[in-house]
């Protein structure tokens, strides 16, 4: 397990490889579908200091407000591939060092990770309660008009666990599993199945 403090730097991120298990500490920014479209089309400046050398988390949490303070109830990852059209640009524009999500991302994001020094970090999908427990404070929320699942939640995390599945050296566990399982699929499709 490697501890990564946020904000981080390029050298630290480039030292990570696929398979490394990581514990994140510091401030992260939740951003998903509406947020990514907004970042690429509007390029909002107020997000720059929050994202530079830090990490985006693909997440639409369940939150609750008590008096005037927000709390995270549940915060597991959403499926990242939906942000594939935007992520490379977000990494470039905001100098993001990591993207947390589930299910992996594609070739364009992998290339941006290689070019700019970033990694994809897989959090275990459905483990929303455990992941919320690592969130010590909701520091701020932006664009609440997107609705609570789609807003930019700025949270402080302590020992948020995730695994590097796409690194800054062009390696992707997702690409490997997809290719290996494709071979297995082709064998099954072409053989005589014995099914009527």
């Amino acid at each position: 397990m490697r501890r990564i403090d946020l904000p981080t730097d390029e050298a630290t991120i480039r030292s990570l490889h696929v398979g490394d298990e990581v514990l994140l500490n510091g401030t992260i920014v939740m951003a998903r579908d509406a947020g990514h479209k907004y970042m690429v089309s509007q390029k909002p400046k107020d997000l720059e200091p929050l994202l530079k050398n830090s990490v985006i988390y693909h997440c639409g949490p369940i939150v609750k407000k008590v008096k005037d303070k927000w709390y995270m109830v549940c915060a597991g990852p959403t499926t990242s591939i939906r942000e594939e059209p935007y992520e490379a640009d977000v990494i470039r524009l905001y100098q993001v060092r990591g993207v947390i999500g589930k299910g992996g991302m594609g070739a364009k994001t992998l290339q941006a990770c290689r070019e700019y020094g970033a990694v994809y970090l897989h959090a275990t999908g459905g483990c929303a309660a455990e992941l919320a427990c690592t969130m010590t404070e909701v520091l701020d929320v932006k664009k609440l008009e997107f609705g609570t699942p789609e807003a930019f939640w700025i949270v402080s995390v302590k020992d948020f666990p995730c695994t590097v599945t796409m690194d800054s050296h062009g390696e992707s566990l997702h690409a490997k599993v997809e290719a290996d399982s494709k071979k297995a699929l082709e064998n099954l499709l072409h053989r005589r199945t014995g099914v009527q």
Partner: protein
Amino acid sequence: MNARELEKHLLELIRRASTDLPPDVQAALEEGYRRETAGSPAKTAFKTMLSSVDLSRREGLPLCQDTGALVWHIQYPDGAEILPVEKAIERAIARATDMSYLRPNAVDPVTGKNSGNNLGLGSPILHFHPWRKKTWQFDLMLKGGGSENCGIQYKLPEGSLGADRDLDGVYKCVLDAVWRAQGKGCAPGVICVGIGGNRDTGMAEAKRQAFRKLDDANPDPDLAGLEKKLLKDCNSLGIGPMGYGGRTTVLGVKIAKLHRLPACYFVSVSYLCWSARRCQMTISGEKARYSS
């Protein structure tokens, strides 16, 4: 039972479905954990899933932040009034959202506005089925968006898969669907299949299979055989939990059939994530009983 009492019980049904993973699913995850290689990412994934499930149950926290669409199948005494029950369900859902058992998940696709309480056009999804019994049976499932995106509908024959209009063709479609999903639907999933029907009924019937317990048996011998074969072969794809690579890619395969039009042969695949959140409530007189 009066409306207020009913609403209270419906709220409890929603709470249980959201926070308490059914025992048959828990058992399948434990088996999945045992099967994976020590030190592998797949083993770690199962370990994290099991510990988070335990935390949710103990603390009453939702299992997943995506509480999805609420799919209800309600069996009711033939002739009983349904509209008041619909209203009670809607009030319970709004209350559950306010109490953070549910995430507000109903978004207007044109304006982008979230309704805030899970109610909206087509939400919730209610199916009422009359029966001869005097009791009411509510089956609720929380069907998340990530898994929903991994659903797919095929038309046979499908040349690219070499799939003809027969069970071998169905077999090939299901394998293809599982391969396409990789880990994105939160594997290991439960693959729910509807053979036949129309575009809408075929998929609805596939989704209804998600209510079946993992260890149940299909009374149709052809479909039972196909379920067993697909469970084995889908797992041989080696996609594993979260798509990390591993021995357990699917927890179960459940198949139903509907009569079809001669011109159509749909194979509808609905993907259910590992966090299969279903719960049942039976109301008999003033008493409510919950089971999963």
